[in-house]
């Protein structure tokens, strides 16, 4: 119980400084759950991309961080949500190199490759929530739809 308190959190994303906080929190939470250095770095980098999208494209929002377990495996779930314009064409947004701004357009697709589970829920004009999960010792079972 005393570890879960440090892992679960809801962090605001409204400035560049908040991104620093998000990265730091995710790194600490992942380390606490026993993620290795490479796995930590991947998750933190994915979080950095998604949080920046929340800030830049979504106009700000928040990240929720929670430990999860399934089939005896431990993991970390991060959920980035905003109430921005939404993503009109998800396939296009996920394509490497696509950007509506002046980024590299690698953020969303890159983040997907850096985590075990990746889910986007976006409604035009209503906002976007990207939820990702990574598992300490890999996904518990071969991926299956629930």
């Amino acid at each position: 119980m005393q570890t879960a308190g440090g892992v679960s959190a809801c962090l605001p994303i409204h400035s560049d400084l908040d991104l620093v906080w998000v990265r730091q929190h995710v790194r600490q939470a992942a380390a606490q759950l026993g993620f290795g250095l490479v796995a930590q770095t991947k998750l933190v980098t994915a979080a950095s991309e998604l949080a920046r999208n929340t800030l830049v494209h979504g106009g700000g929002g928040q990240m929720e961080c929670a430990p999860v377990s399934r089939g005896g495996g431990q993991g970390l779930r991060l959920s980035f949500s905003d109430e921005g314009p939404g993503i009109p064409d998800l396939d296009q947004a996920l394509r490497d190199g696509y950007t509506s701004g002046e980024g590299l357009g690698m953020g969303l697709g890159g983040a997907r490759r850096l985590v075990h589970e990746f889910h986007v829920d976006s409604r035009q004009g209503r906002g976007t929530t990207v939820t990702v999960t990574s598992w300490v010792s890999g996904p518990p079972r071969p991926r299956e739809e629930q």
Partner: protein
Amino acid sequence: MPEQVAAGHQETPAQEVGDFLRRRREQIAQRWADAALFRTVFTVSREEAVEAGRAVVEALAAVAAAERVEEQEADGFSVVREQLARMAASRSRAGSTNSQISVEVDALRMPVVDLLIAELEGRPAEDVRDCTTALTVLMGTLRLVVLETLLSAGQELINRQHLQLLEVATPVIKLWEGIVAVPLIGTLDSARSQVVMETLLDSIVEQHARFAILDITGVPTVDSLVAQHLMKTVAAARLMGAECIVSGIRPAIAQTIVHLGIDLGTVKTQASLADALGYALRKQGAHIVPQDPHHAGSR
């Protein structure tokens, strides 16, 4: 519930308030969920607001039971202090001033007092007064606890900004004739990488440098934005006639960059700052002769 007041053992008003809070926890949490403070912080689901409310009521009950209604440092508060701090911070980020937040916390008082008075119906006026006073004092203390978290958060923000300022002071080091280096430490956000790029380009001109080394050993995260800044800096240095080398990419970061899909192929990389210096020296035509192993051993 008159049987609560057991014969022979008279409860103090604070203890009675503690009992009341515990008994009415659910009802109070439900009412609070509709109050501005909870409603605006927990926008995703009402259940979350209720859950947070329950925790606060529980904490207040513990403080009251311990008869410490006036003490901000009462143990009971420690359980919810972090949660209160987060709620207050969220309001403050949304643009509320400290006094507005204070008013929002104060607005939690009336619904509870109303409930208490309703429950004490029929009891002597003196009891009613004592209990409401205890509850009012307790809610005032809650307000102070919240304000205190805001003030310390303000201090933390100042510290953070100070740290960021320090980070901006990026020294460009002349390693050798014609070779400059920037050891990057910390977060490489847009503002800071702009500073890095400018100081590096300036020193390339000043030092007539042909090689510029960007050492990222101290950069904890390389995401697409950081990578983009690195590539821009490398390209700009190239335009100034200098070759830019990125050193200090740690193995975990190298793997992450690959998964992210970023191609640093156009960027010259070296494992360490020392390797980068060796590379630049060799390209300048300097000979680095390793010490003869026999001599090295005999010294």
